């Protein structure tokens, strides 16, 4: 996917407001933007569907209906059934859990390690920055899907390993972006003032760096969620992620691909589900980018 769009740097807006005030300010700005509100609402509903899947789903995702194999969408099975008679809608609903959990955990790996590396590089500078950034450059020299594939090759195919692979593969790009933003903050007057009065490194990092990169972190993290959903689904699709019978959207698409000629619904609905969720996440990311960096809006 066109990841380079994500790697568009955002200028850090340095402010000395208190973290509490900054948070309130962020929320106010986010909830003023209609696009952001609609996307948040949609993603909230999707998450609720995932959380309450056992209540909402009409059937168990692994229940077999032997008399309804490859049945087209009908009153009983709203989205039809698959090749061994499982209800597609129920599997899609349970799939929300798997897909979102795995993607969010992958992004958490990217977020924590990427932010840590980015902030340390910017704050410490010198040889630490040089060494870490050269390592990031080397990892960035490989397309992220190749890096993810290499990691899965090492760890072996499974959903957990796909999650780790997708999370780790995004760290270099994320760290580089956070480093860029943090460098702007490092050169601001109030950080220099804190240093000159002897504030500890951890205090400066926690109280001055983090609050000022929150907006940027929010934008990048949102955009990386979209990438994580697509990449984990892609790995599952080629058999290196979730394994059947796990109701994961990528795996479901892969299964549906074998029945393109006589059961169009199998490959259609999981694709629509992935696209809608990633579309909402990306649209939200774009809206957040416009909110936190109006100059970048096109």
């Amino acid at each position, binding site marked *: 996917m*066109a990841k*380079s769009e994500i790697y568009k740097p955002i200028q850090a807006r340095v402010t000395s407001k208190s973290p509490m005030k900054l948070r309130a300010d962020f929320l106010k700005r986010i909830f003023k933007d209609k696009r952001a509100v609609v996307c948040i609402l949609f993603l909230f509903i999707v998450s609720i569907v995932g959380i309450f899947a056992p209540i909402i789903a009409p059937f168990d995702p692994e229940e077999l209906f032997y008399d309804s194999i490859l049945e087209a969408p009908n009153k009983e099975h709203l989205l039809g059934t698959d090749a061994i008679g499982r209800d597609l809608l129920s599997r899609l609903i349970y799939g929300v859990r798997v897909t979102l959990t795995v993607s969010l955990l992958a992004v958490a790996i990217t977020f924590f390690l990427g932010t840590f590396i980015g902030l340390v590089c910017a704050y410490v500078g010198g040889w630490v920055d040089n060494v870490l950034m050269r390592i990031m450059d080397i990892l960035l*020299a*490989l397309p992220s899907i190749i890096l993810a594939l290499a990691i899965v090759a090492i760890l072996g195919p499974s959903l957990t390993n796909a999650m780790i692979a997708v999370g780790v593969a995004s760290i270099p790009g994320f760290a580089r972006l956070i480093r860029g933003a943090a460098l702007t903050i490092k050169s601001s007057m109030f950080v220099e003032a804190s240093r000159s009065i002897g504030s500890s490194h951890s205090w400066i990092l926690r109280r001055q760096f983090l609050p000022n990169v929150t907006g940027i972190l929010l934008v990048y993290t949102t955009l990386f969620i*979209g990438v994580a959903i697509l990449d984990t689904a892609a790995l599952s699709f080629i058999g290196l992620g979730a394994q059947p019978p796990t109701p994961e959207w*990528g795996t479901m698409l892969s299964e549906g*691909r074998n029945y393109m000629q006589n059961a169009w619904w199998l490959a259609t609905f999981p694709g629509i589900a992935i*696209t809608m969720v990633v579309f909402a996440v990306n649209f939200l990311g774009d809206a957040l980018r416009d909110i936190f960096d109006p100059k970048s809006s096109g």
Partner: protein
Amino acid sequence: MKQFILNRILSGILVIFGVSIFSFLLIHFIPGDPVRIMLGINATPEQVERLTHHLGLDKPLLVQYGQYIANLFQGDFGTSLKTGRPVLTEILDRFPETVKLAVFGLLIAVVIGISLGILAARFKDTIIDKLCTVFATLGVSIPSFWLAILLVMVFSVKLAWFPIANGTNFRDLILPACTLGVVASTMIMRLTRNGMVEVLSNDYIRTARAKGLEDRLILFRHALRNVLIPVVTVIGLQLAGLLGGAVIIEQVFNWPGLGTLALGAIMSRDFPLIQGTVLFMGVVYVTINILVDILYSVIDPRVEMGVKEAS
């Protein structure tokens, strides 16, 4: 200019050196005994010992790396465990197919991206512009493998215009290239649109309009040329991305390129082949990036000046 090109090449060589360390270490990152994993649980101790010796894994790490690099310089990327053929031969057999797919995909991306970008900028803030923005967001949101399936369902299964993935003829190339092209076009479209909007608000465009020049002439002769510099850069980067990142599409369409080779190697745990393809893709990616940077500095000398000022 010479200094800039030299610096760029040197930093590229350093990165390639780093990628070689990464690809070398891949086998050492495997938890447990890599040779046992490659051979499977039924392997005899003799087989394990023989392969360990063959791969040089019984030597100290530094010696292994030295040997690995020395072999690379002689064009020896190792031997595929599955086919017994040299890894480089396997790669070079498949690479032309990947290039063919990537170049054709890029061509489609450029045509769609630049046309829609111009259209969106010309009709800024109208429904056309908004539809183009939705297309761009949709393009980065749709899983490329699903788009591929949709295209096959419509154009191969329903309409029977194209074959269902099984060859390397021109007709087999169209659907995978279209899939890659549509996804890659979104970035080009956004850049063209934003650049055009900026350029169209310049004084010289207003003057051209005041002189009564035709809209078409203003758009293509005066505005587009100034927008193309960053677009050309992105097109180059997209090519690098497509050469390395078309793995999934190659797999969907059964296209015999580097992607399917890499996937097959991962599935069969053929580590010499995995190492070789990772290294090869890294080298291709870095080389294209360097070429794009150099091309950019040739088209727009401010880039080189920017580097000088920064240093």
